[in-house]
């Protein structure tokens, strides 16, 4: 048995979905890197919002609107505290990581000129590649890529060589969704700052496993999605340093983001509202706060430790299967195992596992450059959360063996 301070069986009772069956088998949910499951405590908050105080925020004098506004702003405070963000108005509520990245990438259009350079890592999610490519097209800036080694670690010597006074922006994920690698973001941020470049860290994959201290990191931008950390879909957070957020132009125009509007001239609202045009995902924001409460209550230290043990165990067990290769064997990694079996297409393994009630992801995981690097069409990816058990890992391993017997 794995050693853990967590009472996993009690925790599992919080997640109603874990009781369901898939194809006549108990669900084994190992696609947490795509989206995590939602505990009853968060579902209750969502239901309560619609039962008691559904109203538009920041605009009504009536009680419901006040209550909804208070709850939404309380969620913002919880986010601020969780990520240790200096100022409350540096917390921009978004629809998710992708929204946050696009907001920054679009905002930088007027700050870049031809010949400027943007540095991005070789293991990015498409949502942290395409917006920068679009920014390059608009501005004539050039994209430079930090290469990685066979283990799936960034080659930091090369990163330092890439940096120069032409570098204006650096983008990197904190944790790779396809490989699980935890990137050395402290070093990345410090080095970028030495040449005067701003840094955006995509924390989508990290935030469910690591509690980052954004002030200590001194990062310029950090983005997350609530749905990867026990919250609902369609809501997330963009942290930006105040000085940057003041400099960046608004991303979308609309209600909420203005101070005064006339047809001659509009003045924009103060932070954070300047970047929060239109009616936001109010219920989602409130539920995001509840999700952080839930995870904090279990404790990120205990979560990280347990997930690490689970991943080590799964790695050992999977490697007993002949012909199985794991992609992403970085020294520092978390909760993701990407693998293939020699001679078998990942889609076939995923199909058989689904029949056994085991949910994994197959394909390129929105990170095609990584697949090209390894010259494979994709991988099978099992990703773990604190509510997964050792027994579920055993089922995965058994399932993969069964698939292998059927397919080879």
């Amino acid at each position, binding site marked *: 048995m794995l050693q853990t301070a967590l009472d996993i069986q009690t925790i599992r009772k919080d997640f109603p979905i874990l009781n369901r069956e898939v194809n006549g088998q108990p669900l084994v949910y190992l696609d947490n890197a795509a989206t995590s499951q939602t505990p009853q405590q968060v579902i209750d908050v969502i239901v309560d919002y619609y039962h008691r105080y559904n109203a538009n925020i920041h605009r009504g004098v009536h009680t419901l609107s006040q209550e909804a506004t208070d709850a939404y702003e309380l969620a913002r405070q919880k986010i601020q505290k969780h990520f240790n963000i200096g100022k409350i108005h540096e917390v921009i509520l978004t629809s998710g990581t992708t929204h946050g990245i696009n907001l920054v990438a679009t905002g930088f259009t007027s700050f870049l000129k031809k010949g400027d350079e943007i540095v991005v890592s070789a293991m990015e999610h498409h949502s942290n590649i395409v917006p920068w490519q679009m920014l390059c097209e608009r501005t004539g800036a050039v994209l430079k890529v930090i290469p990685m080694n066979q283990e799936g670690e960034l080659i930091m010597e090369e990163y330092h060589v890439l940096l120069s006074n032409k570098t204006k922006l650096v983008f990197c994920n904190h944790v790779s969704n396809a490989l699980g690698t935890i990137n050395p973001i402290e070093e990345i941020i410090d080095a970028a700052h030495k040449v005067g470049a701003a840094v955006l860290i995509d924390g989508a994959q990290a935030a469910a496993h690591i509690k980052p201290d954004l002030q200590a990191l001194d990062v310029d931008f950090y983005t997350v999605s609530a749905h990867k950390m026990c919250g609902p879909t369609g809501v997330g957070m963009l942290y930006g340093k105040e000085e940057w957020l003041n400099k960046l132009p608004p991303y979308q125009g609309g209600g909420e983001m203005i101070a005064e509007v006339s047809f001659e001239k509009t003045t924009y609202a103060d932070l954070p509202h300047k970047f929060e045009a239109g009616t936001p995902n109010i219920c989602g924001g409130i539920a995001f706060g509840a999700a952080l409460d839930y995870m904090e209550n279990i404790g990120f230290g205990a979560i990280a430790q347990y997930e690490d043990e689970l991943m080590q165990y799964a790695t050992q067990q999977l490697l007993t299967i002949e012909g199985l290769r794991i992609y992403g064997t970085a020294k520092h990694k978390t909760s993701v195992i990407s693998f293939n079996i020699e001679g078998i*297409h990942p889609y076939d393994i995923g*199909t058989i596992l689904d*029949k056994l009630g085991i949910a994994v992801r197959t*394909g*390129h995981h929105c990170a095609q450059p990584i697949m090209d690097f390894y010259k494979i069409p994709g991988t099978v990816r099992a990703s773990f959360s604190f509510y997964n058990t050792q027994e579920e890992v055993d089922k995965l391993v058994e399932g993969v063996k069964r698939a292998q017997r059927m*397919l080879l």
Partner: protein
Amino acid sequence: MTDKPPSCTFEQNGYMTIQEIQEEIVDEFSMFDDWMQRYEYMIELGKSLPLIDGQYKTDDNLIKGCQSKVWVHAELDGDKLVFTADSDAIITKGIIAILIRAFSNQKPQDIIDADTAFIDEIGLKEHLSPTRANGLVSMIKQMKLYAVAYQTQIN
């Protein structure tokens, strides 16, 4: 047809209508008790059939944007349309074998009119879901498009 794939045994079904072939397939699958047997059979089909001549495994014939790649090629043989296809995933290939058995060596108009409900009946519906990203839905569309194109040619 000159370059026929070597062991394409389905040619003999040329005298059956699409409807009859589909019923035959449904009958065959009704012998299986559970998904394991169905899948094992499909995997067998997938493994045993070289479905496309190498020269047609081109980017032009590739259905893109899917997790598992699917290639389709069509050729007219008299008044019948003959399909060959392949995939890099074995289960996908198994279903392709079934689809080819049903639709290949048939008149273009019959292919245009045919439906694929029998896939549901043999318990493989999920593979024809448009969200499945295995290329099969696009493959069927492509087969019908070929049929439309050749039908115009015949007319």
